[in-house]
């Protein structure tokens, strides 16, 4: 109980710290983007705009104000909401308002909400696959080292890691969809629309990202399993005649998994920030693509919005990972 309490207190403390960090981050982004070449007003206006039109657009976007004033408006929107002109009428963007995209006048929050399902689908599926593959391989190689299955799996996971994801994804597509024609080329179908189609269409993206990340998990699982197997209490179980299977299943695995789970939670947080290359190869309308596109268009409100969301995801994942690790680990330790 004590542990839980202090864990909660720690988590709360950390979240407050993280909120401050994210705020600082948004300041840094505003400053960095201020330095970027590419005038957002001119980009929004189009290349054939004359200077007076660009000036009008700049004023409309509030870009004629000094950067600190722009940032103040951003904060104001975040906490109290803001009003925008849509031309024919005035629209209210309720707090927490991340602003409006400079390039297409969409509320940033709408863009993020529209992009999130694809990113979430990718992250959760890829992580699941990655864990299955990685932990399986890692366990196999820790327990029956030198076996053929283990070697094949190890090479497979290493191949996944040693191949850049753009090549891996493209090759998978070519082989599975074009050459063998086992699957049609994936097109994103929202889960809510048709769960079965969603899964089929996400299969290759999951595989690509999952394979790419799995070698890490294989190595981690293998290392921690070996270590746990060498620990005193396991030796004791063995000495007491507990069967090998039971030792592995009940004790070794439980001891070996916490670091894997912790890492998984962290990676999941990162993946929620979007996997740009995978999203792009498979046409997933996710956050990664949104982000990279808006960086290139110098679309600051979108960049800041997405980075804040990603940052939050990572920070939460960090905290969850720590708690998970602590909880999971305690069970294997003698009390």
């Amino acid at each position, binding site marked *: 109980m004590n542990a839980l309490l202090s864990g909660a207190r720690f988590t709360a403390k950390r979240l407050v710290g993280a909120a401050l960090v994210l705020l600082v981050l948004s300041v840094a982004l505003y400053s960095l983007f201020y330095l*970027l*070449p*590419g*005038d957002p007003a*001119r*980009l*929004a*206006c*189009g*290349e*054939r*705009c*004359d*200077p007076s*039109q*660009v000036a*009008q*657009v700049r*004023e*409309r976007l509030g870009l004629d104000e000094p950067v600190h004033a722009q940032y103040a408006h951003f904060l104001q929107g975040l906490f109290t909401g803001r009003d925008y*002109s*849509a*031309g*024919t*009428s005035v629209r209210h963007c309720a707090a927490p308002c991340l602003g409006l995209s400079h*390039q*297409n*006048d*969409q509320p940033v929050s709408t*863009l993020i909400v*529209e*992009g999130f399902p694809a990113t979430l689908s990718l992250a959760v599926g890829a992580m699941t696959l990655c864990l299955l593959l990685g932990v399986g391989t890692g366990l196999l190689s820790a327990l029956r080292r030198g076996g053929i299955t283990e070697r094949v799996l190890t090479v497979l996971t290493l191949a996944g890691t040693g191949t850049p994801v753009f090549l891996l994804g*493209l090759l998978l*597509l*070519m082989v599975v*969809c*074009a050459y063998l*024609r086992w699957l*049609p*080329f994936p*097109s994103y179908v929202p889960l809510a629309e048709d769960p079965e189609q969603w899964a089929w269409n996400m299969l290759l993206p999951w595989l690509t990202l999952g394979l790419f990340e799995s070698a890490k998990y294989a190595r981690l699982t293998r290392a921690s399993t070996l270590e746990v197997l060498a620990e005193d209490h396991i030796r004791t179980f063995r000495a007491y005649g507990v069967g090998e299977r039971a030792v592995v299943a009940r004790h070794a695995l439980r001891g070996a998994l916490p670091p894997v789970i912790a890492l998984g939670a962290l990676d999941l947080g990162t993946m929620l920030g979007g996997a*740009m*290359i995978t*999203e*792009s*190869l*498979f*046409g*997933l*309308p996710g956050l990664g*693509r949104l982000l*990279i*596109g808006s960086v*290139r*268009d*110098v679309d600051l409100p979108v960049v800041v919005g997405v980075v804040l969301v990603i940052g939050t995801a990572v920070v939460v994942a960090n905290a969850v990972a720590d708690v998970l690790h602590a909880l999971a680990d305690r069970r294997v330790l003698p009390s």
Partner: protein
Amino acid sequence: MRVLPRDRRPALPRAAATASVTLALLGGAVACAGPQDDGSGGGDGKPAEGGTLTVLNSDAQSDFDPARLYTSGGGNVPSLVFRTLTTRNRADGAKGTEVVPDLATGLGKPSEGAKVWTYELKPGLKYEDGSPITSADVKYGVERSFAAELSGGPPYLRDWLIGGDRYEGPFGKGKKELDSIETPDDRTIVFRLKKGVGDFPYVATQTQFAPVPKAKDTGTDYEKHPLSSGPYRVVKNTNDGERLQLARNKHWSAKTDSERKAYPDTVDVRSGLDPAVINQRLSTSSSADAKAVTTDTNLGPAELARVGSDKELKERVGVGHFGYTNYLAFNPDVKPFDDPAVRKAVAYAIDRASVVNAVGGSSLAEPATTFLPNQKAFGYTPYDHFPAGRGGDPDKAREVLAKAGHRNGITLTLTHSTEDGETGPKIAAAVQQSLKKAGIRVRLEGLENNAYDEKRWDAEDAPGLYLSRWGADWPAGYPFLAPIFDGRQIVANGANFNHAKLDDPAVNKEFDDVQQLTDLDAAAKRWGALDSRIGEQALSVPLFHPVYQRLVGKDVKNVVISDWTGVLDVSQVAVR
């Protein structure tokens, strides 16, 4: 013109599609390819109605407001939803560069030396909700394109309409209406221009001439669900134009629209795809992809190499030419480019074959020696003032340089974009290689794309030598030459396209004189002559005109590729 008003790059650089001219911007993108012959991509028999056409694209249709779109001839996908006063002729090849009536009964009646253009709407035109289309709606559509909220369109109306340069659109505090557009009755609309413009019917193909009923205007939200006047209406627009689902507009009638065929029942536009994946999907043609086309993705060199050895695939490739020129631009304000001899030496030395190879080979680019595209509609008049042959003439270049006092060759800086593509590092490296043979040492300066655009279009600070390109807003000489060589279009603190800052009274006068001709053939001849005359000064070195090669799915029929867009016309395609 320029294409690519906003060079919206795809999420990723397309490693594959070298010649990926994102005309998309153009609203919709011009794109695609179909079989060259009769255009029947796959399948036999006559095209029939029904089915779903899938469009696989790289760039999202993130603008879908007729005021914001920058299109050549009304765009491709946009043209399914927006009808305009006039439109492009939906025919293969050179026939496709003609302008034809759309909402209007004719191409417009010019008067007062082409300063006044009068259009009459066809009777019985309706929106998707069954309400009638009126001339006031066309006027309002033009007016709202002046609003800062809906910026992005082409500059011509602002430059030509009386009072256009001061008008700020119907939303602002100032004047709500533009007096130089008159609507004496529900079917008549009159445009009053500052000067005679013979090309006005071409401009009336752009989406700013699509009708927008004032009562239905929702400002910046309008693009989510614009009121359709064309054969399809928007059912759903998701992820900011990444997916666009279109279905038949029941109130559209083929009787008033002889241009759009509208065979498929529904059109599903999916974008945000990697170009390599798009091409692979089209070539594999499994399930829905068999009924798919692309409006913005060319075959890359690798895909082309493969198509060459596959007869079935080859039949599904359409070849198109869009008026487009890639060139080396000189800024004579920067030494040593003030010396015509240096510019001429570069022109003599250039190895166009290796530049063409860097673009993807002779199937994807044709060497260019003229600034105007090699099409009759532009007034193409062949000339080669500094013959370099296929591989360059380094000896002649050395000789010219030596005469100008550069006996030991010369060192130049070539500025380019770091983004792969037609102004990218590969082309720059090929130019560097080819000039080396003539003793011209080239230093490459690569800039990130936004920085590059900003710098090359900055009249004060433009680099001395850089890669550039220009595309056609419509297939005629004016929009191709005027922004580049008309001295009055030098922009002091905006985007300046007159790289040489040429301000020659005789040239300026020719622009004015030819612009008001309503005899377009006569005008074309004079544009060609003007191009040749300017070319003598070696202010630019034309490099190549791109060629578009695009695949269609195996069940796609009736592929029509005009020289106006160079890509297959979505409104003509059938999937049954």
